[in-house]
């Protein structure tokens, strides 16, 4: 919980990690990828405020105590959602698996939500693994990497028949939230891995599932925005948007926020720190304090209020994951319903005012 100026914010970190990327976890023969990957992540941390930068060695492997302090004690987070990233081709025990996350989280009841993952190219064995993970850890969400390379396959689409089979199984197992990584990637080499049209179709065909597009399709924000206006069950995951832009590029941060608020709306935007790339503390505090620069070029973007920020920082995610919010941290009736699907508007409704019109 973050309190400032008499306002209290319930904070859900919708996207964070507990990884081990130290050299003893590198797969022999794949060291250059394992090293390149974590160094790339570490460079992203450089886009945050200088006083929050870590030495590479600490960044490769931080402890459970570090995480609890950075995220909960200092970082104002009430509940954090683990998003796993396997990368077992490069990291022997995986980069951060469902199991690693849950074994740590189990020591801190009520603090974490454990998401798992699947890859539709893993066949029946993958279905069984998904079933085991859901039963063992009570998962309500999955994180998917459609661009991931897998045994000769150069990525997949959510619309592939195998992916639909997995989505059906996941839904029957009680999974509700599908986090899809549409952001910086490596493989496949020739396809545009940021293409979000597959989310568009899957969201239509699985109306009971929520699709959270992580990193808002960066660098294809426009495609994501246009798609999100047409699908009531598509949400924007703000990880990287706040961490990568708010401090380093405040003007572009304001514009990206303005576009997201216009196309997607405050009910469907979900905060995520992407810890340990960036600590939540400065992101939460900065976001609560943020507003558009007072300039003409920002004048026709939708406004942000305290209620908007409460939704984005925690109440929307709490709604998607049935996280209990203390009564004093909820919104009053006039401030609307967090994560409201019915507020989704069709594109035609968006075709109204334009600056200078």
């Amino acid at each position: 919980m973050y309190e400032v100026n008499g306002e209290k914010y319930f904070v859900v970190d919708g996207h964070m990690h507990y990884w081990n990327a130290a050299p003893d976890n590198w797969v022999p023969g794949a060291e250059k990828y394992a090293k390149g990957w974590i160094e790339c992540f570490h460079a992203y941390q450089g886009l945050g405020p200088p006083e929050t930068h870590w030495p590479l060695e600490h960044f490769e492997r931080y402890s459970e105590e570090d995480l609890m302090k950075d995220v909960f004690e200092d970082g104002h987070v009430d509940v954090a959602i683990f998003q796993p990233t396997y990368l077992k081709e490069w990291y022997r025990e995986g980069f951060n698996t469902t199991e690693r996350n849950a074994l740590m989280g189990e020591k801190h009841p009520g603090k974490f939500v454990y998401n798992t993952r699947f890859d539709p190219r893993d066949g029946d064995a993958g279905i069984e693994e998904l079933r085991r993970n859901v039963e063992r850890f009570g998962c309500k969400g999955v994180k998917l990497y459609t661009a991931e390379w897998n045994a000769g396959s150069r990525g997949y689409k959510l619309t592939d028949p195998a992916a639909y089979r997995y989505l059906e199984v996941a839904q029957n197992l009680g999974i509700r939230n599908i986090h899809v990584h549409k952001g910086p990637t490596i493989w496949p080499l020739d396809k545009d891995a940021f293409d979000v049209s597959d989310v568009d179709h899957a969201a239509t065909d699985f109306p009971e599932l929520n699709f959270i597009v992580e990193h808002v399709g960066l660098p294809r924000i426009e495609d994501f925005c246009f798609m999100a206006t047409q699908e009531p069950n598509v949400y924007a995951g703000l990880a990287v948007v706040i961490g990568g832009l708010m401090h380093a590029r405040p003007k572009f941060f304001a514009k990206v926020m303005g576009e997201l608020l216009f196309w997607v709306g405050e009910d469907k935007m979900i905060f995520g720190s992407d810890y340990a790339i960036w600590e939540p503390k400065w992101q939460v505090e900065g976001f609560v304090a943020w507003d558009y620069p007072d300039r003409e070029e920002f004048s026709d973007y939708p406004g942000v209020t305290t209620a908007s920020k409460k939704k984005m920082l925690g109440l929307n995610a709490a709604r998607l994951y049935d996280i209990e919010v203390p009564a004093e941290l909820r919104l009053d009736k006039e401030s609307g319903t967090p994560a409201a699907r019915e507020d989704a508007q069709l594109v035609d409704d968006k075709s109204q005012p334009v600056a200078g019109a």
Partner: protein
Amino acid sequence: MRGGGRGALPPSAGGSGGSPPRASTALLEALETVHDPELNRPITSLGFVASCTVSESGDARVRLRLPTYFCAPNFAFLMVADAYDAVSAVPGVQHAEVVLEDHFASDAINGGVAARAGFVRSFGGEAVSELHGLRADFLRKAVMAGTDQVCRPLLSAGASPAELARMVLGDVPPSPELDRLRQRRAELGLPAGDGAPVLIDPVTGDPVTGDALPLHLRRARVTRVGIDANASVCTGMLRQRYPDPSAEREDP
């Protein structure tokens, strides 16, 4: 169109060789015509050119660098190949070598470009198509972003969307943004002359009118915001990786 520098190398003093390679303005000017297709900016202003030199005998050497070890190899390949073409076309260059440094696919890209192998052959089975479609997709995004750059000042000055829809390119006051928009449209084979409408569909080239106008202008703006934000992340990352490169900074 890219390719070809504006300048030529100064005549060598007899081509005897022996003196060290030196930085070349003509090469740099040629490289200014090479764009990062995704960011819609010259690789020179992005800070992607680590060095470019030429020897007296016409051996040109260019070293390129990118913001991360894992930058998408398809775009990286296009930039290295375009740089190779641009440098090779500079008068006086006898032999060109363009090398991408510090990238997970450096060997495949550098070897493939040097051998004129194309993308698919360079990646030996990991890629299934050449990159023309990808390039065209991003040129269309550049057209949309350029439309916002050209139209926003007109809207701020009081023009209505309906008035914009009646305007042709020849009506717009000259600016570098207008030149770039015309160039991108021409590269796609879309109308780019003085008589062409300002607002066109970037796929069909048809004029945009009526009810479609507000949405078209909104899409143009979000496309520009997306490209600018992405470019700002990339240049920020480049600075982390190579402190104090000659990269762009956010204007105040």
